[in-house]
């Protein structure tokens, strides 16, 4: 299966990455090379094998739902590209 230009645009859109037609052309070639390499995994018979999502088969540990620390809002927002009055500023989304 080979990715077409439209597929690359759709994937880039899902990934929220702007991509030009020229870039999509180049990406299609590279992604197809990578996917061709990846296709090899289909050859392994994995019937009955449980997918491995953690190398030690560890389970997600939960912590008590309790306050553990008090965030410093000013410090945590210091890296924001645009902010005012403790709020992150973004282009208007509701008219």
């Amino acid at each position, binding site marked *: 299966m080979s990715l077409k230009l439209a597929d690359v645009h759709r994937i880039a859109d899902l990934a929220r990455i702007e991509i030009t037609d020229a870039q999509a052309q180049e990406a299609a070639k590279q992604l197809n090379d*990578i996917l061709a390499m990846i296709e090899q995994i289909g050859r392994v018979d994995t019937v009955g094998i449980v997918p491995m999502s953690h190398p030690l088969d560890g389970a997600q540990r939960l912590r008590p739902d309790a306050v553990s620390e008090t965030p410093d809002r000013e410090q945590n927002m210091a890296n924001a590209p645009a902010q005012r009055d403790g709020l992150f500023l973004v282009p208007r989304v509701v008219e």
Partner: protein
Amino acid sequence: MRPLSAMACSLCRGSSNDAHGKAAGVSELAHASLTELGAMLERREISAVELATYYLARIDRHRDLNAFLDVRAEPTLAQARAADARRAAGEKGALLGVPVAHKDIFVTRGWHTTAASRILEGYSSPFDATVVQALSQAGMVCLGKLNCDEFAMGSSNENSAYGVVHNPWDRDAVPGGSSGGSAAAVAARLAPIATATDTGGSIREPASFSGVTGAKPTYGRPSRWGMIAFASSLDTAGLLAVSAQDCALAFNAMLGFDPKDSTSVDRPQEDYTRHLDIDLRGLRIGVPREFFAAGLEPEVEAAVRAALREYAALGTQIVDVSLPNSALGIPVYYVVASAEASSNLSRFDGVRYGYRAKHYEDLLDMMRKSRAQGFGAEVKRRVLVGTYVLSHGYYDAYYLQASRVRRVIADEFQRAFQRCDFLAGPVTNGVAFGFGEKSADPVAMYLSDLYTVPTSLAGIPAMSVPCGFGRLGRPIGLHLMANHFDEARLLGVAHRYQCITDWHTRVPRGY
């Protein structure tokens, strides 16, 4: 300056000059091991401030390597003064006042953290990563932040947004990646030890290419808190250093359970130096035959086989083992790691932190442009691959199948460990390549990690230990692997080899 005395290792008897041959240059302070630096501080032959000042000057003198991304004398010297004050107050510790440099994947207060990406240019973390904090608590003095591949994605350090790092052994060669800055800094002795991260080989491959010792512990032993996430089921913090012994000392402070990391393993604290004098007689080293596949450079094979003969001479039994599906590690890895990366990197949207495009139409356009302009080519490629393999209709064929084959590969390691105690082979199929040699072909670059990726998928500890020089005089690493949680013995196995060889003490000319 007084001659440095050797560390108490019953096997490296006498001065390190006898045991380590080429270490005659040890009269140069920078060539001292972590252990020796700790001993000098303990004897008050040097202060932490003097040591930090000395390394900062070396870093400045070798700026052309581009190993460091952020160096600031002020916080470094403040940490050094604090270490000296702790010593003056009677505190002792092997690491107290010893310098360390951190890969720019670990967030640090006092230095910018960028993950070598434009999207995080100028980012100041409000907290320290657990690994950084743990080493700092042990009294280690941070020298600055080290260059790497953007978000640790790469095998050559050519994917850094802030320029390539040169290999101190050969300026035309890559230092390896993704921890290229860490490897080059230790190889050039700009830091006695450096933190690094390994997702698919990012500690061992640069260690091999740059002629230094690299150690990746069991997945889950080091905390991932504050380590900028790439592929969360694989990301493992580790070290690049001069010797296995130095790694063991620093692991004592660095590894341990962290409630802030939900995949951190809750096990008792260990002394990682306790098996340094391990008796090798009767131990079995398995050699996976698949690790000597076509394409392996003859000099690399010869150096690895020679190292195996050294182990045999020390009483180790060498056994033939097989990891039949290990070559599928690369395709499995590029599904699993890319999928996890596409999810992890969705947090970079130009809203809460990081780069925001200057011109845009609306919120969605702002995110699309910020990510397009902020991420480099390789990062975008992997996010696209990851998005695709997780997308509707493809998840089962790609992600689920890859996760199943991952278990097949991990099970093969377990079968091999029924026949042997450790595994050994080459780290890479060749020595460091030149700039631009593989960067035009992503798949060729990915294959650099053929021998390192399977162990990452299995989550087992592994090392690269210098074992010779190959084509163009470039370094070769011996790959040593152990089963889960067996890193103390693994470090011992590496240390025993370093007691009878001097490859790890060699320093590139001019450094």
